[in-house]
């Protein structure tokens, strides 16, 4: 096992053993209970998938922030002394892995609530959109984590405002200015998501990529 993977495993183990992992899990279960109170009728599968992916972003961001902040600051220094700047890669990998677990759980519940058997297209679209959601959550969680925003209050407000800005900007049609979460839902419900998937993928990955690059740059002076 490489040092990066070993450190990611250590962080995941610490996160799971602490109470922090439960908070976003409970929020996710509550969200799933609301979303899937009724079953999903045939023909609405992709729309429901897009709704799930869009609404998961803040929960996933919270989970990512929770994982990154579980470790005491001095322990992060110890990790930094062992791995150097690769410590950051390990942190992001561990956070992304935890988001994949939550996103898989959401996807599994969605599939269980479908009236019709899911086609391969529905399955792959669901996986793809939830990966985009996890990437957006990872970037937002990382940018609001303790090394970047030390105050818990400021960090929580920034996380909420970050998600709200995604909603507002994408609702206004500014697809290139944010992660277009509203466009995922709108296109899915209008049956045009699949034909425009490559473009919407690029639009959805652009800001998380910029966000993660900013996080990496800021962490140079914020160990």
């Amino acid at each position, binding site marked *: 096992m490489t040092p990066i993977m070993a450190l990611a*495993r250590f962080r995941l183990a*610490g996160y799971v*053993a602490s109470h922090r992992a439960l908070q976003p899990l409970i929020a996710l279960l509550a969200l799933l209970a609301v979303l899937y109170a009724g079953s999903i009728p045939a023909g609405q599968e992709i729309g429901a998938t897009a709704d799930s992916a869009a609404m998961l972003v803040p929960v996933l961001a919270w989970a990512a922030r929770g994982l990154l902040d579980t470790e*005491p*600051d*001095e322990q992060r220094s*110890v990790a930094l*002394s*062992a791995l150097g700047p690769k410590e950051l890669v390990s942190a992001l990998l561990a956070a992304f892995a935890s988001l994949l677990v939550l996103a898989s759980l959401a996807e599994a519940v969605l599939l269980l609530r479908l009236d019709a058997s899911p086609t391969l297209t529905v399955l792959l679209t669901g996986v793809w959109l939830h990966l985009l959601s996890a990437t957006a959550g990872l970037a937002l969680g990382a940018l609001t984590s303790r090394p970047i925003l030390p105050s818990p209050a400021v960090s929580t407000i920034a996380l909420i405002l970050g998600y709200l800005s995604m909603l507002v900007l994408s609702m206004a049609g500014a697809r290139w200015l944010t992660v277009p979460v509203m466009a995922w839902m709108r296109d899915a419900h209008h049956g045009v998501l699949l034909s425009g998937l490559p473009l919407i993928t690029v639009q959805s990955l652009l800001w998380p990529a910029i966000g993660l690059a900013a996080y990496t740059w800021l962490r140079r002076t914020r160990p």
Partner: protein
Amino acid sequence: MRIASLSFRYGRRDPWILSDAGLVLDAGDVVEVTGPNGTGKSTLLRLVAGLLRPVRGSVEDRPRVVGYAPERFPADQPFTVSSYLRHMAAVRRVSTDAIGRWSERLGMDHLLGQRLPDLSKGSAHKVGLAQALLAEPGLLVLDEPFAGLDAATRAELPRIIEDVSARGGIVVVSDHQGDLRAFPGLRRCEVRDRVVRELEPVAEAGETALTVLEVAVDPSRASDLADRLRAEGCTVHITGRITARVTREAAG
């Protein structure tokens, strides 16, 4: 390893902690960093270890394997000592045999099954030292390593430092209490007023320049005064108690 023209402050509006500091560290060097509280000893150590980036200047040729033991080990983690050290050994890519070796040497065999949050300060400090030593570091940075240690480990730590130095490792230690003063070949640096200044070795300063001062003080203030004098670079031994009457007679 060379520290050249190093300046550091935590933020643009913050005061400079270090300014134009320079230091050359050769293989096998053991350096004691001293100075009053809050002058930047820990900051210097973190810069040496690569945990902070210099705002100006550079740290060049840092050894590849760095061991760092913080002043306060972060014990608030949901692991037992053993599982924590096993994770750290995996991160360092060293065999878990090293855990047994270091736990025995640091006198912490009996702690392996305990949870980190349950440890006393001194025991947690040993875990911090163990993780720093696991990978045979080429640069070992210890922030106040003697604080809270029991007598046996206090006596063992200089021997451990000597071993690291003997195989070519650089050891940088901040030490308020002067436990390393008798270490042969010890280099001493003082951080004061944003400057890192190399002091004369203790052995050379010793026989000719030292004065022994007897101070009588209320027992409740003894420890505090001793710490303050140590911070000033004095060697302090608290020898025992005398009565106030004797003190007055001595004064008269």
